């Protein structure tokens, strides 16, 4: 049964299918499993970070620090590996640091009642600044584990392949989907985004949920940072600049309401894929500058926000009639 609350996600999925099919008709070699899989390979880190962002936005907040946390993660990983640390120590460490960074921001947001926008903006500058404290240059990674993670191709039946990063991203996706819909933490997040005052009066653990949401986003950023390190094999303070905005765009295109309380992790997956497929089309076209991706994403964002407005406007109207 198609319920009205599922409309936004259907729009997103249909849009993705439409673009993909249109691309397949226009360009030879576009319609293949590998092109589809490449969307995942090239956007694994974006997917991970956008999933964390989905939770934050559903809870009614925003996290601007994610791009910087990715950059910081690449920097810390690269220097520690250069100093001879084992990846088995580096990866857990950066994941813990990212989570702690997120939890810290969440705690400030909750206990001092400061807008998430400001707190995470401060977090964004802080993390980006810390990158340059470590080094202003690119640090390349030649650790065997990292290079093997970067180069390993998992061949699928039919001859196409994916990278390990894709597996990680899909695992995160599965876990997040389960968390959003089948755990109390996930449902409390929706409740928080629906009406925080009510959530308090309903006796829900608002503090824990809110801090948890930012902690999860911090964790996702750090994990995306690890995956990004696999992808780039370097640490650099200019990595992932503006990625927080790509993530937010993916979430919004995926049908999540910026005002909170409504959205799906699955929508975010397609939000990321739409960004990817537009990029692919532009590279197939060949003559267009890659900045056209941004232009199209901008237009899409605008379109989706107007759609959301109409959608939530109708909800409001319904409430008034009631």
């Amino acid at each position, binding site marked *: 049964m198609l319920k009205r*609350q599922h409309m936004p996600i259907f729009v997103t999925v249909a849009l993705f299918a439409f673009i993909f099919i249109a691309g397949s008709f226009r360009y030879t070699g576009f319609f293949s499993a590998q092109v589809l899989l490449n969307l995942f390979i090239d956007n694994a880190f974006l997917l991970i970070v956008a999933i964390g962002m989905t939770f934050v936005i559903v809870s009614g907040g925003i996290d601007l620090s994610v791009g910087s946390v990715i950059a910081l993660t690449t920097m810390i990983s690269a220097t520690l590996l250069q100093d001879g640390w084992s990846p088995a120590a580096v990866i857990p460490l950066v994941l813990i640091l990212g989570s702690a960074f997120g939890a810290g921001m969440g705690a400030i947001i909750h206990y001092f009642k400061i807008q998430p926008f400001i707190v995470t903006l401060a977090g964004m500058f802080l993390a980006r600044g810390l990158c340059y404290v470590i080094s202003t240059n690119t640090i390349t990674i030649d650790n065997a584990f990292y290079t093997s993670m970067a180069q390993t191709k998992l061949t699928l039946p039919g001859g196409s392949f994916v990278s390990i990063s894709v597996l990680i991203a899909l695992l995160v996706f599965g876990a997040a989907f*389960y968390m959003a*819909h*089948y*755990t*109390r933490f996930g*449902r*409390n997040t*929706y*409740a928080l*985004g*629906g*009406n925080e*005052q*009510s*959530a*308090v*009066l*309903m*006796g*829900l*653990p608002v503090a824990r949920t809110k801090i948890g949401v930012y902690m999860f986003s911090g964790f996702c950023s750090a994990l995306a940072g690890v995956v990004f390190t696999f992808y780039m094999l370097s640490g650099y303070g200019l990595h992932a600049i503006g990625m927080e905005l790509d993530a937010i765009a993916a979430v919004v295109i995926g049908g999540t309401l910026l005002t909170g*309380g*409504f959205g799906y992790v699955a929508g975010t997956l397609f939000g990321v894929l739409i960004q990817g497929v537009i990029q692919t089309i532009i590279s197939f076209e060949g003559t267009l500058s890659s900045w056209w991706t941004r232009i199209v994403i901008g237009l899409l964002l605008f379109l989706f926000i107007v759609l959301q407005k109409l959608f939530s406007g109708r*909800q409001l109207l*319904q*409430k008034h009639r*009631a």
Partner: protein
Amino acid sequence: MEERRPILHMKDIHKHFPGVKALSGVQFRLFPGEVHALMGENGAGKSTLIKVLTGVYSIDQGYVEMEQKRIAIQSPQDAQEAGISTVYQEVNLCPNLSVAENIFIGREPRRFGRILWKEVNRAAASLLEERMNLSIDVTLPLHAYPIAIQQLVAIARALNISAKVLILDEPTSSLDRGEVRQLFDVMNKLKGEGLAILFVTHFLDQVYEISDRITILRGGEFVGEYAASALPRIELVSKMIGKELKLLEELPKQQADANEAAGELLLEAKSLGRKGSIEPFDLSIRKGEIVGFAGLLGSGRTEAARLLFGADRPDQGSLRMGEAGAVHTPRQAIDQGIAFCSEDRKGEGIIDDLTIRENIVLALQASQGWFRSISKKRQSEIAEQFIEALNINPPNPDQLIKNLSGGNQQKVLLARWLLTDPKLLILDEPTRGIDIGAKAEIQKLVMSLSEKGMSVLFISSELEEVLRVSDRIAVLRDRRKVKEMSGDDMSEQQVMKAIAGGGEG
């Protein structure tokens, strides 16, 4: 009754806020299987008492006993765990979640941490069915249902948290008659099952219809606890306001004879209508006349008023104001001397973080243009003048308006529009949620304004009030103007008949 033991006993409760004694020495008892009304004017301490009981505020002195055991309530969670649940006027649930989820969130049945949705939905449906006599699709989001249903869902949630004490804080304010009936049926059923219900309302009728006992507060102090059957209405009111109820009774019944045809035509609407909001209607208002809109909630009263003010765009018909001509936008309406006091005091009227003075001069300043500012001295003079004239309390122009009681906020709003010296004042539910004393003051004020030649469009859900104030009444039903009456035709029965509709019931 006295041999039974109270399930909840609040003893000698004190609560201070900076500069205010909100509660001093208040006591309250609640027995199982009763509906107990908590009465008092605004500022009597009802909300404070409830917030103390639900853990929103802490107690300064005194204590709460639940089933003869002292309990400490420090947070809403504590209250819930003690078996005290509250349902507020504005439903405190999450509109984006499903009905079932709203009932069970935080306590969903789980297996290995996985929420069992089938179980949740089934349990929610049977809970609503059995205890609320309500069968609805529990998987739809809460906002898909009207407020009345949302309230029942909130009650269901409260009950499910093994509530022994249920607090209903102004639950009926935004319900229509049928919905109130439905709520009362549920309350009676729950009462029969031994639940103790604390009921707060402004509607006296409802108090007598449903409650067994009444506790009265005044000025933060305990006045008394009475059996509802042993407390006549008039005595209840005089105990609430602490003086003999002269003010209300002295209000003269409007003399219809004097200004019958005297005033010239001020406003004329011809088959003015808007699809989905109100069907085309005619209305004329003369100078110095008070026209009342009567009708149930949702009958189209507000919608009609918004058309008259130009706040909504009509699909058809015309609207003329005196000689000046047509009215299409609120801007034009204001220029031509129409002032509109919205029913949504909080949302569309007052600006919380400004002072009384600033809130009063707002409309005048706007009509003068922002570049000709009114000096602060002048502002204060104006504010003080109105504070005195309307008896606004506290009489301090620099008090933030959010700290005022509902009645006083309403007076500030009135002052704002009176200052612009309107020819027509539209008052949408000016007395909703304010206490009897302030109500009478506002009614009196409206009458004296009309004597001075101002026309007033008075909208209220309280029939009695509309009858008392108006020269002429237009009755609305189902988004249609069904009848207009004046003079001797105007009686409660006639209006009721028109509201109920011919022959149906």
